[in-house]
């Protein structure tokens, strides 16, 4: 039964991931991403990592997705600007690097197939186990993440609050830095 659900969610996951990359309309990209994250969290739950699955759903499908939607809304992308964005001078190079990456990746995956399976873990991914590990083995990295939050607070205060110079954000001439190479 579990393997049936695994293959079901895995297939939807792959199809939705393709839609994220290939769909032309940005709104469809974002909505497919929601499907991707839903399937991903289902896979985690199948692995008995309940906490991770739920958090993934809450944080990504809940919060991060809303940001994406806001950005898509604010940018107001239409077909013309999208086409202009998709024009790339380095198409050939991009393809080459992509193929290289893919072949290396397939080799990597192949050696996973022959590798001995990881011993089945008796740990169930409930909040209790995650919390215990977080406050014992991973205490130091966990505490250090608080510094990341502190930095973001400073960043927001300094970058987003109030104008720095004379008060008005005067539109400066927009010449890119590397223009005079």
């Amino acid at each position, binding site marked *: 039964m579990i393997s049936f659900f695994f293959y079901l969610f895995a297939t939807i996951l792959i199809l939705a991931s393709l839609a994220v990359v290939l769909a032309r309309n940005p709104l469809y990209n974002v909505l497919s991403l929601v499907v991707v994250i839903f399937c991903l969290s289902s896979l985690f739950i199948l692995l008995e990592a309940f906490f991770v699955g739920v958090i993934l759903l809450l944080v990504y499908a809940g919060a991060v997705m809303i940001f994406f939607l806001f950005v898509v809304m604010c940018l107001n992308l239409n077909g013309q600007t999208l086409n202009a964005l998709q024009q790339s001078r380095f198409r050939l190079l991009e393809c080459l690097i992509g193929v290289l990456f893919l072949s290396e990746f397939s080799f990597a995956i192949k050696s996973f197939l022959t590798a001995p399976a*990881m011993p089945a873990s008796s740990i169930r991914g409930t909040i209790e186990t995650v919390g215990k590990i977080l406050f014992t083995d991973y205490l130091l990295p966990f505490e250090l*993440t608080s510094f990341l939050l502190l*930095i973001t607070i400073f960043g927001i*205060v300094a970058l987003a609050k109030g*104008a*720095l110079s004379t008060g008005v*954000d005067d539109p400066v001439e927009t010449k890119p830095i590397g223009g005079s190479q």
Partner: protein
Amino acid sequence: MFPIIHWNLISLELLITVTLVGLIVLDILLPPETGKDWTGLISFTALLIMIGFWSTQRNLSGETMGGMFIMDSLAWFFKGFFLLAMVFVFPMTRQFLKSLPKWRNEFYFLLWLALLGMCLVASSGDFLMLFISIEILTISLYVMTAYLKSDHHSLEAGMKYLILGALASGFLLYGISFLYGVTHSTGFAVIQGYAATHAMNPTILFGLVLIFAAIGFKIASVPFHLWVPDVYQGAPTPVTALLSVGSKAAGFVILIRLFFGVFASWHPQWSSVFAPLAALTMCYGNLGALFQTNIKRLFGYSSIGHAGYLLMGAAAGSILGASAINFYLLGYLFTNLAAFLVIVLFFVTNKSDEINDYAGLATRSPLLAGVLLLALVSLAGVPPLVGFFGKFTLLMATVQSGLLWLALIAAVNVIISLYYYLIVVKRLYVDPPRVNSPIPISSSMRFILWMAVAGIVGIGIIQGPFLEAAMTAAKGMCFLP
């Protein structure tokens, strides 16, 4: 089981944290208009005290927090390195921020956080810990790069750095997950044990390539160098100085710990990759620097070039190579920060970073011109300055490992670099000045400048103890012949 915490091992980081929190509280308590830069003054004093404290930790070694945090000779060396870099960056910031009407103290807090991140990077004993330390360092650098909100260049630099940096972080995390998939652990000790008993396989190779991509981004090596010139030019100058010395050294301490320690058993495979990368990086940096008109951009390209020289030590793949990297970085610290001190002081009075505006600096301020001359000549590698001896040890390590062709390419690059460094020197000494007003320098800045000069000349002449410190640092964790 709750892990046993050895407080003395993490005491330096705790001290930094306490100072940071104290400064934040002080910032709230002090009246907003005191007219004096208290945060800057206290920061500098605290830094000097910390260096004193650091020097007592010399023989401290061990690990704590269940192997998350390692203290050994390499970590000790680099923590001192980062503290020393900050000794120059804080006065630079004090000068630079005079023109900033608001949010000065927050800049100091971010500098402290960056210092904390760098010290933690040097002490990481687990990939998870390493990732979070790198993020602490990099995210504070993103904010500082975009700090001059009204300056279009600063914002553009911040944006570029953020996007490419996020990509590099993604690579690092992806690489770590591959290693975890194979070794079933993120701890350095376990992975090292796995490496000692297993041969390299494609999965691990894939993980290593991704991890190196993230390190390459930090040290500005080809092909992960694209952000360097723009970000160096656009960022506030103290941040550029920190990027070019602190952030680069943080990249190299990871490189040494991972490739000379954790993955030492796979050394034949990876050292063959480093040699062509080193050659490409130094050629790109030095050729790109030839036609620059902005001095910060010039130093951006020169920093790529120096990353190439430093990678030679990694390509050598021996203890001598690792020690040469350490020693070269120490010299690079004094030399590059001396140059950036001059750039900041020049910018404060002239509001320009264009090399043409440096014309005739020798008549306007003989001290500034002299320090810049010394720094440039040392970067180019002229004896008896520290840059020469650093290059010498790197070349020695390379030749000893049988990479004669790489040493030859490096020698050609040194000659190319002499050209563009000397063009700046010509501007300073031969060209007539455009403005004749002298440049005022406060006595405290004079002292800092002389300190940098003492480093450039002093380590160049008395290399023994410093080379020995670099050797000890490398030997502490290196598992190579």
